[in-house]
């Protein structure tokens, strides 16, 4: 069966609603299906992968650490809207250093996070077969 392109559109931050963690759960399950997976972080979705999250004070699971595991599942296309970051006073330096080892390049460690313009996300989105939003 042909591989399909799946995009996960993340537009909300992590703890106010359940959508972020359940989106991540789907992504982890999807890894077993060997499809072409991209994650897009737009609007408040960019806060999902910000460095330094600490949930000790709210009694909820800090699932931001799970994003570090995605590279091991060959999920290494995390596109972050540059405009969304800028609007929120954030930059690429505020994001978690998520990496994967490139098997086609001597297992060199590379960044999974790509900060791109909305125009670039538009191009990537238009190539998808399925877009999940939560």
């Amino acid at each position, binding site marked *: *069966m042909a591989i*399909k392109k*799946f995009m996960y559109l993340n537009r909300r931050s992590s703890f106010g609603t*359940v*959508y972020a963690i*359940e989106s991540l*759960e*789907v992504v982890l*399950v*999807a890894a*077993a*299906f060997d*499809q072409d997976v991209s994650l897009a972080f737009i609007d408040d979705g960019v806060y999902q992968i910000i460095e330094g999250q600490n949930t000790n004070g709210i009694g909820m699971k800090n699932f931001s650490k799970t994003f570090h595991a995605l590279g091991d599942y060959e999920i290494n296309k995390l596109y972050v809207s540059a405009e969304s970051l800028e609007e929120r006073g954030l930059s690429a330096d505020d994001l978690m250093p998520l990496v994967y080892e490139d098997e086609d390049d001597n297992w060199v460690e590379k960044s999974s996070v790509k900060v791109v313009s909305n125009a670039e996300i538009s191009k990537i989105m238009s190539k998808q*077969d*399925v*877009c*999940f*939003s*939560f």
Partner: protein
Amino acid sequence: MKISIQINEGPYQHQASDTAYQFAKAAIKKGHEIFRVFFYHDGVNNASRFTIPPQDDRNIVNQWAELGIKNANSEPELVVCIAAALRRGMLDESEASKNGIDGNNIHPAFRISGLGQLIEAGIQSDRLVVFGD
């Protein structure tokens, strides 16, 4: 065309399930196949057979059940995410007995299964449409 649907919200609180139902009904009438409807997040509450709306209101659960969305093996293709369902106290007979709980509430027109069913719906269908908040 094969179309699948994902529903993220429960009945009566959000319009998502109503819109998805009207969409599914229209698609079937047009001769399309609804391959699967996947209920996720609070969407799992659409599967409660204990739902009792007032007489002058629609019964969203029964509406879905009456669409009779099934596969070639006559299994329901109204699929409820198991993890989201168990968290919210939505159980079928098997999950109730497995967890030692003295009742179950999943309508027989629905079935409980894993998230893989959502991915599979994306792979097998020509289109996947999401309804949410």
